[in-house]
């Protein structure tokens, strides 16, 4: 009897467990189907909004039509994405037409509401939109966002400030650029895209002069990406009047080499015997790009430097001198006093021979000419 009751209980428990599992699976499946349905409905709506507004946006580049279709609040996000994409595809007077469209569809007000959204993507969209619309009313909000922990948010806020009023934004940005080590230098250069290369170079150089050495040296190395020499005067003043850390000096020498302004040659020469090896290295590389014949002995002397990388870059610099033919390099090799220095020159002599014979038609990559590729630092190199 007791055995029968016990098995009856077990059966009941088993049935309940099976029912629970089935219910859970059905619930899960329903949830998946519901999510899929919602996603497909969103996709359909996005396509419908795009079909309506994409040709209209193209038309608005020329002239905003008198009547516009209704824009529901739930479609406004998609519209903003399309609007921003169109805005960034064009330049000139046509942007004014798009701004008019934005105000007529009350997108400025919608974007101001989005500024306080919880989702980062929506906040970013709002900032970008209001920056394009040059909406001054959010200036203080953007300034506060410059100090936000999120680097995306702060960078986008900085770009929006520049779009609204570049002259007022630059003095605010200089100290921020000098402080934020999470801002990529190339993104900083890109941020100034609408403002102009000269302003970009000047601002970044001033920020670098104020920054800690690890940030400043990074900023200076990437100044070459602005393709403007406007950043050179603040750096020349820094080297002349102060005693900046070695990292900054090395970065400045790198930049001088990239810009190859003859006025900087004496400065480069002055650092060829610097006590720190990576400063000598950058001086050698720079002299290879901007030096004259009288600088050849300075580079030859560096072939006997105590540091391998300095010897290597000196050899490379010698091979890059405009008047350095294969024959001249060969004579130079023969005249060198140590086997080590000859060994450093040999690969470059081989390359020169191949180039001269016409076998090599593709220019070899020059690592030192890319601002984003720093020199390798051995573990024992002292960082400022």
């Amino acid at each position, binding site marked *: 009897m007791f055995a029968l009751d016990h098995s009856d209980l077990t059966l009941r428990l088993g049935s309940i467990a099976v029912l629970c599992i089935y219910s859970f699976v059905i619930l899960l499946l329903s949830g998946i189907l519901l999510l899929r349905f919602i996603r497909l409905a969103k996709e359909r709506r996005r396509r419908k909004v795009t079909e309506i507004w994409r040709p209209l946006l*193209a038309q608005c580049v020329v002239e905003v039509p008198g009547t516009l279709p209704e824009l529901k609040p739930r479609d406004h996000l998609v519209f903003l994405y399309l609007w921003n994409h169109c805005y960034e595809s064009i330049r000139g007077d046509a942007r004014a037409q798009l701004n008019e469209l934005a105000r007529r569809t009350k997108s400025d007000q919608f974007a101001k509401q989005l500024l306080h959204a919880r989702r980062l993507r929506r906040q970013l969209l709002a900032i970008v939109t209001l920056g394009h619309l040059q909406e001054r009313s959010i200036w203080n909000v953007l300034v506060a966002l410059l100090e936000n922990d999120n680097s995306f948010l702060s960078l986008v806020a900085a770009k929006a400030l520049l779009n609204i009023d570049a002259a007022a934004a630059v003095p605010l940005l200089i100290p921020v650029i000098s402080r934020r080590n999470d801002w990529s230098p190339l993104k900083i250069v890109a941020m100034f895209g609408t403002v102009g290369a000269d302003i970009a170079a000047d601002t970044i150089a001033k920020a670098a002069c104020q920054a800690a050495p690890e940030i400043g040296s990074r900023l200076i190395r990437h100044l070459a990406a602005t393709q403007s020499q406007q950043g050179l005067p603040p750096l020349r003043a820094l080297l002349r009047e102060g005693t900046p850390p070695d990292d900054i000096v090395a970065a400045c020498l790198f930049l001088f080499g990239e810009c190859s302004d003859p006025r900087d040659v004496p400065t480069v020469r002055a650092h060829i015997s610097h006590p720190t090896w990576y400063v000598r290295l950058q001086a050698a590389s720079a002299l290879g790009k901007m030096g004259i014949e009288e600088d050849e002995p300075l580079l030859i002397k560096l072939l006997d430097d105590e540091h391998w990388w300095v010897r290597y870059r000196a050899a490379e610099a010698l091979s890059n001198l405009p008047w350095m033919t294969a024959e001249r390099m060969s004579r130079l090799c023969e005249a060198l006093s140590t086997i080590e220095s000859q060994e450093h020159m040999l690969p470059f002599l081989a390359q020169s021979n191949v180039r001269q014979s016409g076998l090599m038609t593709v220019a070899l990559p020059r690592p030192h000419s890319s601002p984003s590729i720093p020199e390798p630092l051995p573990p024992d190199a002292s960082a400022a």
Partner: protein
Amino acid sequence: MEPTTHRKLTVLMVEDEEDTASLLKFLLERASYAVVHAKDGRQAQELVDTIPLPDIVLLDVMLPFLSGLQVLAYIRGNAAWEKVPIVMLTADGSEHDIKRALESGANDYMLKPFNPRELTSRLKRFLAPAA
């Protein structure tokens, strides 16, 4: 007297981004050009082999499957297309791309983001406007 028929000038536009393509198509059609659109490098190649000669090619540099420079080389390798003017569309600041494009046979280039008025002016340099 036979009525005169004015042929619409044709532009082969190679652009992968839908929004940009839509905008370019609108501007070109508004300027009375007939537009043939290729969405990627491969489609552009197929069109070069099949369609009648267009009056001008508007070619983006960054394309899927084949780059704009590869498509440019393909077009210039086709003797029939030797004299068709090609205008490259390239992102702002890509001097390297511009140099390579001009050396490879492109006639002109336009930077993105582009000025809509400048686009039609540049095309007019190579084409007479359609009647």
